[in-house]
């Protein structure tokens, strides 16, 4: 159902972004820019230990610090029944430590003062006596009987959170046993953090006289946060007004509710004054939700010809101290069951075990639709191993196993119905752009000269747009999304959606989409998100869901307006609605195109000159419950060379061909791809939150937690194929996360390809130079 962009339609055009004029002038309004009269500042006291009992907390000295107004501890919250809060994954999390701490930098007390500095001074002066306990860092040890039970609050006396399985285990085992070729890989995706440049924060402003709480918060999901806050605090939901101002990047980090938010709200309620809390970078990386930390094993069975027969996957998921993942309720391991990828596996089975350890809680979907990055990395890496074992070019192996265009809708053995794709065509396009055959020839020559050169391929399928209400909810709330459009008498419009962009350009792209549907100019449509008092209820922006869900709602709200507009147009044309036609820009009399009225004419008439008996106004709201998820996909090819002296990997070229269905704005899509590839590059080469055996976080800031700078980031080359989603109102699939999901495997496959002639079949990420140098050294390749 792809919609062709008519000459006048803005759909598919690289329109410059409407949000930019304010942002390039420094006139964005981010959370920390909000200052209210009589506002106080909050700072948190955090534990230096990863696991310890709290023997005492002394506040006397902190209270004497000039400017300090109040201090709360876990005991105070317990008295108000607020010591624990629910996580989006259905677990619970301590707001302030209750009796003991379970991870380093855990929140222990909150200090509020007249200035930011005084609050920090006060926090420094809170004295806490800890009794250190045995620390559990390794999730496999956590599962052993020797490990101490970390969560004493649970009835279950071990560190196992849940077991989740999907597929037919017996059939997968049998098919594997019968397969003449088998490969098995252990693959770890280490703990990483999304680390948007703006940290998290909030301003809680409770007015005692009205009983209304206005809560400014760095939120990717303001409506969900309103509901959660209402449930946690007991405040009536209509008296909570959540405003998510300009958000300085999110990538999943700003989906959960954090203890600092709850403390700021509690203190504002208590003091009747606005309370601001903005975390530091260290607090952001060390305590707010991490991602990944999946320890995976995959086994693929295949025929001698390289036709896959079965896939079996088992995984240990380290969730840290609390399961604070933001996954849909029925999916504790997210959409990990996309692990069969782009291939026709007749049989598959996957299981995941969630585990508690003494680390910060999580994990969020970091630029990824709930554990899809993990799944994609695992299958694309293991396919590389299979190609090596069979002695097949990785491209040829993939071609033999791709789901074919005529097989869509395709039912995967793990329960998904893939909507559409042209995998072979997409791969072919990537190969042409990079001259794959030429590259292989060049690689052979360079290898003869002693160079370590590799070519890595990843042909992934994503699953996004959660999701259909029969399957997807968060804490019971169905994962639909919404749009309200109001057309003003002069033909200008405002649209509000339940999503909340963080740089994705919704103010521009949704205006283009709605303009296309209504025959208006995108410039005449104001798109607003992030204010719960004005926007219709929606589940927010993450998991590449905005275009698949709210985008669908926007198109259908616009079509609902068009239905009414057609009746008004007929009235203006003095014909019957049945004789009225919409050509994308105008309504006209059937067969008589010269007799026409525009949407602007109709808008004025909706307020001034209506057919008799018709309700005035021209607006509509649509809550869109998507019938299926969407399945963006792509073919990525990386070329790397390895310095034998230093172990440094240089990405010489990277071509990404994405198929995200109908494209609303190609400039924005390309920007999303550039950004996602860069985060995938960071994950492959440098981003890791590691811990020592005492549970000390070894990368709590940008000195140790390395994210890509402009120097090492490759110059990305992009292309696309366009296979519309058959069920989405405009055929769009979503794109923000594909590049982050698909690229890590391409980098690793390239490095493995460079080293495989020397017997290397697996390299762990992140591929730090020292790690590669060690491998070179072991294989007598170091210089």
């Amino acid at each position, binding site marked *: 159902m792809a919609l062709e962009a008519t000459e006048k339609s803005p759909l598919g055009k690289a329109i410059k972004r409407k949000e930019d004029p304010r942002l*390039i002038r420094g006139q964005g309004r981010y959370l920390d820019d909000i200052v209210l009269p009589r506002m106080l500042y909050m700072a948190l006291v955090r534990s230096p230990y990863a696991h310890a009992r709290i023997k005492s907390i002394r506040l006397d000295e902190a209270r004497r610090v000039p400017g300090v107004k109040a201090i709360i501890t876990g005991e105070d919250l317990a008295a108000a029944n607020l010591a624990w809060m629910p996580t989006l994954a259905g677990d619970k999390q301590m707001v302030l430590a209750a009796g003991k701490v379970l991870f380093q930098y855990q929140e222990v007390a909150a200090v509020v003062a007249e200035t930011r500095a005084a609050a920090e001074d006060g926090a420094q002066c809170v004295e806490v006596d800890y009794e250190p306990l045995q620390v559990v860092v390794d999730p496999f040890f956590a599962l052993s009987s020797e490990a101490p039970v970390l969560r004493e609050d649970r009835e279950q006396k071990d560190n196992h959170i849940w077991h989740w399985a999907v597929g037919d285990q017996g059939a997968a085992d049998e098919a594997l046993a019968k397969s003449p070729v088998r490969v098995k890989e252990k693959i770890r995706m280490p703990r990483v953090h999304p680390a948007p440049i703006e940290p998290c924060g909030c301003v809680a402003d409770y007015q005692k006289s009205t009983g209304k709480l206005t809560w400014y918060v760095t939120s990717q999901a303001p409506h969900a946060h309103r509901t959660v806050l209402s449930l946690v605090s007991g405040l009536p939901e209509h008296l909570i007004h959540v405003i998510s101002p300009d958000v300085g990047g999110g990538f999943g980090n700003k989906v959960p509710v954090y203890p600092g938010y709850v403390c700021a709200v509690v203190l504002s309620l208590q003091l009747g004054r606005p309370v601001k809390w903005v975390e530091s970078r260290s607090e952001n990386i060390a305590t707010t939700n991490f991602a990944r930390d999946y320890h995976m094993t995959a086994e693929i069975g295949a025929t001698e010809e390289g036709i896959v027969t079965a896939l079996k996957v088992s995984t240990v998921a380290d969730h840290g101290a609390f399961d604070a993942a933001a996954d849909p309720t029925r999916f504790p391991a997210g959409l990990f069951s996309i692990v069969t990828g782009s291939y026709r596996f007749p049989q598959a089975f996957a299981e995941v075990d969630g585990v508690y350890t003494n680390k910060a809680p999580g994990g969020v979907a970091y630029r990824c639709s709930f554990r899809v990055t993990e799944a994609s990395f695992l299958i694309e890496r293991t396919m590389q191993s299979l190609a090596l074992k069979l002695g097949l070019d990785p491209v040829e192996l993939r071609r033999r196993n791709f789901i074919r265009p005529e097989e869509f809708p395709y039912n995967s053995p793990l329960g998904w119905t893939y909507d559409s794709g042209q995998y072979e065509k997409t791969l072919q396009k990537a190969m042409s752009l990079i001259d794959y055959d030429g590259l292989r020839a060049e690689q052979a020559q360079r290898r003869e000269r002693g160079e370590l050169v590799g070519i890595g391929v990843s042909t992934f399928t994503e699953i996004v747009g959660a999701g259909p209400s029969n399957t997807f909810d968060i804490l019971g709330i169905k994962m639909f999304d919404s749009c309200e459009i109001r057309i003003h008498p002069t033909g200008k419009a405002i649209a509000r959606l339940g999503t909340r962009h963080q740089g994705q350009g919704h103010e521009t792209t949704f205006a283009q989409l709605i303009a296309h549907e209504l025959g208006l100019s995108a410039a005449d449509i104001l798109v607003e998100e992030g204010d719960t008092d004005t926007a219709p209820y929606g589940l927010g922006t993450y998991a590449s869901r905005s275009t698949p869900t709210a985008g669908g709602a926007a198109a259908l709200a616009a079509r609902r307006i068009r239905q009414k507009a057609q009746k008004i147009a007929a009235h203006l044309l003095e014909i019957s609605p049945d004789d009225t036609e919409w050509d994308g820009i105008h309504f006209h009399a059937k067969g008589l195109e010269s007799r026409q009225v525009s949407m602007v004419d109709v808008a004025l008439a909706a307020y001034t000159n209506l057919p008799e008996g018709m309700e005035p106004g021209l607006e509509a709201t649509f809550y869109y419950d998507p019938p299926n998820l969407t399945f963006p996909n792509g073919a990525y090819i990386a070329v790397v060379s390895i310095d034998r002296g230093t172990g440094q990997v240089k990405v010489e070229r990277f071509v990404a061909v994405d198929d995200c269905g109908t494209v609303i704005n190609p400039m924005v899509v390309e920007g999303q791809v550039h*950004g996602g590839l*860069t985060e995938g590059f960071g994950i492959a080469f440098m981003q890791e939150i590691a811990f020592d055996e005492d549970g000390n976080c070894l990368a709590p800031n*940008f000195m140790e937690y390395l994210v890509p700078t402009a120097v090492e*980031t490759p110059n990305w080359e992009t292309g696309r194929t366009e296979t519309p989603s058959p069920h989405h109102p405009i055929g769009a699939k979503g794109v923000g996360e594909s590049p982050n999901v698909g690229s890590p495997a391409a980098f690793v496959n390239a490095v493995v390809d460079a080293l495989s002639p020397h017997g290397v079949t697996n390299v762990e990420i992140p591929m730090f130079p020292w790690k590669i140098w060690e491998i070179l050294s072991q294989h007598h390749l170091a210089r």
Partner: protein
Amino acid sequence: MEKVESRAEVPVTLTINGETRTALAESRTLLAYFIRENLELTGTHVGCDTTSCGACTVLVDGVPVKSCTMLAVQADGHVVETVEGLDKDGVLHPLQQAFWDNHGLQCGFCTPGMLMTSLALLRKNPNVTEDVVRHAISGNLCRCTGYVNIVKSVIEAGQKMALEEV
């Protein structure tokens, strides 16, 4: 004793975007917060606490400085430029225009720092190569764009500035 001294407020006078301003600040106040909170110019952002991200970059006497790592009192008597001083009478600076034209920003949080670092670079020499730009902005982190369009924007702005100089 130290704590008491660091809380004592002293007057800080500086020229910011061409205007001379004086405000009281604790001697421990960082320039970034002085600009944001005392002078109410919130275009300068704070993204880390280790001088790593560059979101707070401003120009002090024409030199890019990470204002989270300089005390406000150190800027006393100096000339400071921030993102708010870039456009003149509503007309965008070539850098701002190029970032807009080339999709050089997404969430916009790193953008003010990125613009100020680039401004210092292009003032020295507007004819820059990709490699020069990439090294010049290596102290400014962006998590959204992957830098490609930022580099493109800076090169394009440099070309325009070179023409204006002629």
